């Protein structure tokens, strides 16, 4: 299989290249950059995307330097991880820019952004957006409609990864520090950017949670990812069209990271550090690989998924006006909100698909009209 068709000339426009594309793991409610009407060549898009990547990674480096109090809190043992996050930032910003430069994404995201920043919308339905974010990004209810088991497994992986990212990224960047006034506990202080946030006893339950957060995350991820791996071995529906690099590698990465991470804990507690160094290298390699892989494979959906909220918000805003539903020109059944169809027609014109008026007919009527045309103009009978 190949990547999406490359017949479309991506037509990016100028604008803030990095808005919403902060290189964080976990789903950021990304709002797309504005896109101008001037079409650009693929080379121009690539240039712009590279620039965006460079700016975002530079910003991240600066944030690391200042966040770790000019590297005072920076743990040099975590340097490879930190470098990987800088690459990640570059990759995500680059891919993001390319992605939102395509007409379909660009137009929809402009609309999403407009709905997002509309003060009127906010006044009318202040809870809509938070609810949508919780539904689509947090609890991912739509996955339950596909399969309850897949929803459960995805929730395990999702929360596991989120937890792990929330702990490790700031640690890597030297933003979090855990210090003990006695040098080795049990009393610890947690500091962010050097400011003390809270103190705790490492022997308490809370303390145990703080120190074993990553182990908990690993258990969640292993459970979820194993289910997905098992399914990809057994389910004919999943096996159909399955690609190793796209579908299996991410799962294997997650399992390897989690297992090696857990083994590190196991080694330090029960083996007095036996095999620790080997495991640490293995763990680091798998993490670095995964971070760099995120923008280019299946994991990119983490960055893309917030678009679902933008799309939803756009339709929601349009639907609030009752007259805004477009009915099929022939059968008068509702198709979708009128602004949405207009938006789609704009996209089709951008792409030089000159049958954009066709979008005002429902799919059934398109087929029936084509069938009638075939009967009238091609053949009515057998021969």
């Amino acid at each position, binding site marked *: *299989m*190949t*990547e*999406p*068709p490359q*017949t*479309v000339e991506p037509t990016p426009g100028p604008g803030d290249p990095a808005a919403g594309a902060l290189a964080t793991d976990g789903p950021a409610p990304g709002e797309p950059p504005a896109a101008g009407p001037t079409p650009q060549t693929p080379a121009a898009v690539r240039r712009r995307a590279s620039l965006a990547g460079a700016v975002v990674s530079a910003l991240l480096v600066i944030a690391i330097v200042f966040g770790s109090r000019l590297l005072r809190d920076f743990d040099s043992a975590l340097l490879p991880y930190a470098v990987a996050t800088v690459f990640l930032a570059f990759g995500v910003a680059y891919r993001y820019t390319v992605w939102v430069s*395509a*007409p*379909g*994404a660009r137009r929809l995201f402009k609309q999403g952004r407009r709905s997002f920043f509309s003060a009127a919308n906010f006044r009318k339905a202040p809870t809509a957006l938070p609810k949508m974010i919780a539904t*689509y990004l947090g609890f991912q209810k*739509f*996955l339950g*409609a*596909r399969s309850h088991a897949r929803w459960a497994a995805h929730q395990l992986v999702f929360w596991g990864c989120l937890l792990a990212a929330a702990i490790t990224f700031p640690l890597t960047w030297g933003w979090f520090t855990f210090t003990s006034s006695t040098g080795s506990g049990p009393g610890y202080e947690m500091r962010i950017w050097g400011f003390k946030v809270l103190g705790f006893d490492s022997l308490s339950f809370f303390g145990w949670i703080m120190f074993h957060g990553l182990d908990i995350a690993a258990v969640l991820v292993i459970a979820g990812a194993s289910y997905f791996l098992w399914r990809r071995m057994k389910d*004919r*529906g999943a*096996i*159909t*069209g399955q690609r190793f690099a796209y579908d299996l590698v991410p799962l294997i990465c997650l399992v390897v990271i989690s297992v090696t991470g857990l083994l590190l804990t196991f080694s330090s507690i029960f083996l007095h550090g036996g095999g620790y160094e080997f495991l640490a290298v293995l763990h680091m390699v798998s993490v670095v690989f995964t971070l760099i892989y995120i923008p280019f494979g299946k994991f990119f*959906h983490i960055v*893309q998924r917030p*678009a*679902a909220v933008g*799309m939803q918000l756009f339709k929601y805003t349009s639907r609030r006006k009752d007259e805004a539903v477009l009915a099929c*020109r022939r059968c008068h059944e509702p*198709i*979708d909100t009128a602004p949405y169809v207009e938006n*789609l027609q704009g*996209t*089709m014109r951008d*792409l*030089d*698909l*000159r*049958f954009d*008026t*066709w*979008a005002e007919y429902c*799919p*059934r*009527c*398109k*087929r*029936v*009209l*084509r*069938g*009638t*045309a*075939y*009967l009238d*103009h*091609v*053949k*009515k*009978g*057998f*021969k």
Partner: protein
Amino acid sequence: MMGRTIFIDPGRCIGCQACVSACRECDSHRGKSMIHLDYPDEGHSVASLPTVCMHCEDPVAPCAEVCPADAILVTADGVVQQADTTRCIGCANCVNACPFGVPKIDLQAKLQMKCNLCYDRTAYGLAPMCATVCPTGALFYGTLDELRAERPGVQVADSFTFGSTTVATGVAMVVPADKVQWPVPGGLPVVEINGRDVR
């Protein structure tokens, strides 16, 4: 151009919907039928029209082009896949942009679904389920030569007109010999002549 693909002949179709039931038996989307069966001549005759994905070649897959999430992939052999489950955001752009009215959408699951030429079967050397069971040959899967072996001299067309646009497709339709040089009308009604609405 045409390799192993589906050939549609509405003239032979008896509208029995075996294809619709058969599609539901496909392992990759069990219980969900992707094929459409319409009776376009309702009230006049029992004529029927089966619609599978036409796997547009030029322009390559309008559904994939309008997708804001790059969710619709096209394989090297020109098969337009259904939306990638991880990417699809359920916006319905493809549903309303497709000139043939093919994609369906699961609103609860936020997922587009459509005919993918039975990848799970063709990968094992089997024909797609609909064309395998079609009692009449209205849906035929194979090469043009294989079709001609069954039906000597049959002519097919693989381009359709929608207004001023011509769409070339991977799936072809049977046409009479005297119509073979013309694209098949896509059915887009004339709505405007010289700025005048003639609907």
